[in-house]
C-alpha cells in the first residue's frame, strides 16, 4: 500500500523520465532567438507605437569579412598522454607563464583552502600558492617580470566587497592596487550587486584589468520626490517613465519588472501574452536620477576597464567604447601591439527574447580603445590568444566552433563546421602550442587540437583515460603543453598534449 506522498513522488519522477535528455550546447537557444527577436521587436513596435522599442539599444551590424579558409583533419604533431599530477580545474585561458612556472586560478570555491586558489606548476606538478588574506582570485597574468592576480575581497559591514589587483615580483611579497569602482554607490542605487567576471592581462604596454558588475537598478527608489510612474524602461540615456498600460478589450493588464524596466503585459484566458501599449510620459537622464557613471555602467551591464602604466602605477578607468550588456565574461590578451578585449553582448528585450553577438575592442596603449570587431558569426568567445603569431579566438556561432583571427586590424573567421566539432560541454583554450577544443559526443569526450587553426587532429579522451569520463573540468593551454582536467568517478585526472 502506498501513501499519497509516495504516489506523488513516483508520479513526478515518472514525468521527469519523459523530459528531453539531449544536452544542447550553451547559447544555442540564444542564437536561435534571433529570428524570434525580429518578430518580437516588430510586435513591440506595433503595440507600443515604437515608444518602448525605440529606447532599447541595437547592436551594429557586422562589417568584418569571413574568410572561410579550408580547415582539415590531419597530423598536427601533438601527442596525448596521461599526466602525472592532477591540475586545478581552471576556466580556460586563465594561465600565465613566469620563470618557467605556470600559474592559474581555480575559479571555484575550494573548501580545503577556504576560497579560490592560485596554482603553480613546474614540470607538470601542481601546487597551491599562498595569496594575500581575503583575496578571492579570478585570474592571473604576467608581464614577464611580475605576477598579477585580480580578485575581490570580503564585504564588510556597510561596504561592498572591494575589487583589487595584487602584484608579486620574484622573491617579493604581494603589493595591492585597488580598481576604482564605486561599488557602494552602485549598491545604494540597486536591488542587487554582484561584482565578478574579472580579467587581467599584462604586457609591454602596461596592465589592463576588466570587471563586470551585475546589478538591477532600483528605479523606484531613484525617482525624484513626488514623481511616480506606472512603468519604466532603462535606456542608454537614463530611464523612460511609462504611462499606464492599455490592453485591448477582454485582456487583463499585469505588471512585470526586471533589470530592463517595469512593463505592463496583457493577459487573456487563452492565447499568448503581449506587451501593453505604454506611452513615454517623461524621460529622466542619469544626472536627473542622481546617479554617477559607475552606476550607469553597472545598470547597462557595460564592462569596467582599467589601465596601469606599469608595476606600482595606479589603475585608471578607461573607456573601451563598447556599449552593450555583457553576456559572457570578458577575455583579455596583451602583446607588443597592445591589448585586445573580447566579450559577448546580449540585448534583452522586454519579452525576454535576446539578440547576441561577440565584439573585440583593441588598444595600442591601454588607454585609447576602438572597435576591432565584431568577429563574423561569433556569438560567444570561448578562448583568446595567438595562433602563428596572430591574435586569435575560438568562438561559437550557436551551432559550431570557429577560429577568428585579427589580420591587418580586421577580424575574420574560419568555420570548423566541416570538421563536425559541434557538441555539448564545449571548452577551448589557446596557448603557445596551439588551440584545443573539448566536446562531448553522446557519452564520449574528445579533444581537437591544432597548431595553426587550419589542420586539426581529434583524440578520444575516454580512450586515453581507459574509463568513461564523467566531466571535463578544464582546458588549459600554456607553455608548450595543453592540459585537460577530467573527472572520472570521484577522481580528477589530467590528459596532457605536447609536441614531440
Amino acid at each position, binding site marked *: 500500500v502506498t501513501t*499519497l*506522498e509516495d*504516489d*506523488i*513522488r513516483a*508520479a*513526478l*519522477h*515518472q*514525468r*521527469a523520465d*519523459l*523530459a*528531453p*535528455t539531449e*544536452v*544542447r550546447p*550553451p547559447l544555442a*537557444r*540564444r542564437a536561435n532567438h534571433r529570428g524570434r527577436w525580429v518578430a518580437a521587436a516588430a510586435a513591440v513596435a506595433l503595440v507600443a507605437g515604437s515608444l518602448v522599442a525605440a529606447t532599447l539599444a541595437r547592436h551594429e551590424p557586422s562589417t568584418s569579412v569571413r574568410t572561410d579558409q579550408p580547415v582539415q583533419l590531419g597530423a598536427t604533431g601533438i601527442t596525448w598522454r596521461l599526466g602525472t*599530477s*592532477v*591540475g*586545478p*580545474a*581552471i*576556466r580556460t585561458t586563465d594561465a600565465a607563464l613566469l620563470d618557467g612556472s605556470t600559474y592559474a586560478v*581555480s*575559479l*571555484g*570555491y*575550494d573548501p*580545503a*583552502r577556504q576560497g*579560490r*586558489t592560485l596554482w603553480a606548476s613546474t614540470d607538470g*606538478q*601542481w*601546487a597551491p600558492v599562498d595569496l594575500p588574506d581575503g583575496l*578571492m582570485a*579570478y585570474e592571473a597574468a604576467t608581464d614577464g617580470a611580475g605576477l598579477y592576480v585580480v580578485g575581490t575581497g570580503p564585504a564588510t559591514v556597510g561596504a561592498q566587497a572591494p575589487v583589487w589587483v595584487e602584484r608579486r615580483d620574484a622573491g617579493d611579497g604581494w603589493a595591492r592596487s585597488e580598481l576604482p569602482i564605486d561599488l557602494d554607490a552602485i549598491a545604494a542605487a540597486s536591488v542587487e550587486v*554582484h561584482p*565578478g*567576471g574579472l580579467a587581467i592581462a599584462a604586457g609591454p604596454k602596461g596592465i589592463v584589468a576588466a570587471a*563586470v558588475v*551585475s546589478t538591477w537598478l532600483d528605479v523606484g527608489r531613484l525617482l525624484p520626490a513626488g514623481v511616480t510612474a506606472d512603468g519604466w524602461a532603462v535606456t542608454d540615456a537614463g530611464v523612460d517613465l511609462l504611462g499606464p498600460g492599455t490592453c485591448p478589450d477582454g485582456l487583463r493588464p499585469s505588471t*512585470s519588472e526586471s533589470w530592463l524596466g517595469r512593463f505592463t*503585459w496583457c*493577459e*487573456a484566458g487563452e492565447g*499568448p*501574452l503581449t506587451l501593453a501599449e505604454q506611452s513615454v510620459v517623461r524621460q529622466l537622464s542619469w544626472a536627473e536620477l542622481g546617479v554617477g557613471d559607475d552606476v550607469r555602467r553597472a545598470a547597462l551591464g557595460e564592462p569596467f576597464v582599467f589601465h596601469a602604466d606599469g608595476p606600482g602605477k595606479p589603475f585608471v578607468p578607461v573607456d573601451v567604447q563598447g556599449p552593450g550588456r*555583457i553576456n559572457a*565574461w570578458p577575455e583579455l590578451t596583451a602583446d607588443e601591439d597592445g591589448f585586445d578585449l573580447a566579450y559577448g553582448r546580449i540585448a534583452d528585450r522586454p519579452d525576454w527574447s535576446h539578440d547576441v553577438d561577440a565584439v573585440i575592442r583593441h588598444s595600442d596603449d591601454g588607454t585609447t580603445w576602438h572597435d576591432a570587431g565584431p568577429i563574423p558569426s561569433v556569438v560567444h568567445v570561448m578562448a583568446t590568444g595567438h595562433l602563428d603569431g596572430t591574435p586569435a579566438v575560438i568562438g561559437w556561432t550557436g551551432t559550431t566552433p570557429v577560429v577568428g583571427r585579427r589580420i591587418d586590424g580586421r577580424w575574420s573567421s574560419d568555420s570548423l563546421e566541416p570538421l563536425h566539432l559541434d557538441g*555539448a*560541454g*564545449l571548452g577551448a583554450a589557446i596557448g603557445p602550442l596551439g588551440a584545443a577544443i573539448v566536446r562531448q559526443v553522446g557519452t564520449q569526450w574528445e579533444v581537437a587540437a591544432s597548431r595553426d587553426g587550419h589542420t586539426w587532429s581529434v583524440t578520444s579522451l575516454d580512450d586515453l583515460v581507459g574509463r568513461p569520463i564523467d*566531466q571535463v*573540468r*578544464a582546458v588549459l593551454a600554456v607553455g608548450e603543453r595543453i592540459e585537460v582536467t577530467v573527472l572520472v568517478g570521484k577522481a580528477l585526472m589530467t590528459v596532457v598534449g605536447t609536441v614531440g
Partner: protein
Amino acid sequence: VTSVAPTVVTFEGFYAERYRSAVRLAFVITGDATSAEDIAQEALARVEPRFAEVEAPWAYVRTTIVNVARTQHRRRQGEEARVRLATAAMPATTDLVTSELLDAIDRLPFRQKAVIVLRYYEDLTERDIAEVLGCRPGTVKSLASRALARLAEEVER
C-alpha cells in the same frame, strides 16, 4: 611537490553535468517539453556570468527555474489545457493513477505546485524550499498542507 585536487568546476562542466537535471526539473514543473528546455537554458544562461562567485550554482539555477516557470505560468494559463493534453498523450503516462495525480498537481496554484515539486522531486527541506520561493518556512508548511489536502481530495474523486 604534493598536488591538491580542488573541488571546483568550470561552467562548461557544470552545464554538461546539470543540463539534463535542469530540463527535468523544468519539465516536472511545467509539463511542457519545449518550454522546459527554454527555461533550463534561460536558468543556466543567467548563472553563467556569475558562475564563479555563486557558491551553490545549482541552487541558483533551481531558484531561477522556479521563477521563470512562475512567470511563464502566469503568461500561459490559457495554454494549460493544451499542455496537459500533450503530456497525457505521452506513452509513459498511461498509468491512470500517475496521470490523474499529475493532472491534479498541474491544477494546483503555482506556489503550491512548486512546493510539491521541490519537496517530492527535489527532496528539499522546508527551509530550502522557503529560500527558493522567497518566503518563510511556515508558509511552505502551510502551502504543502493545503496542496496535499487538495490532491487527496481530487484523487479520491
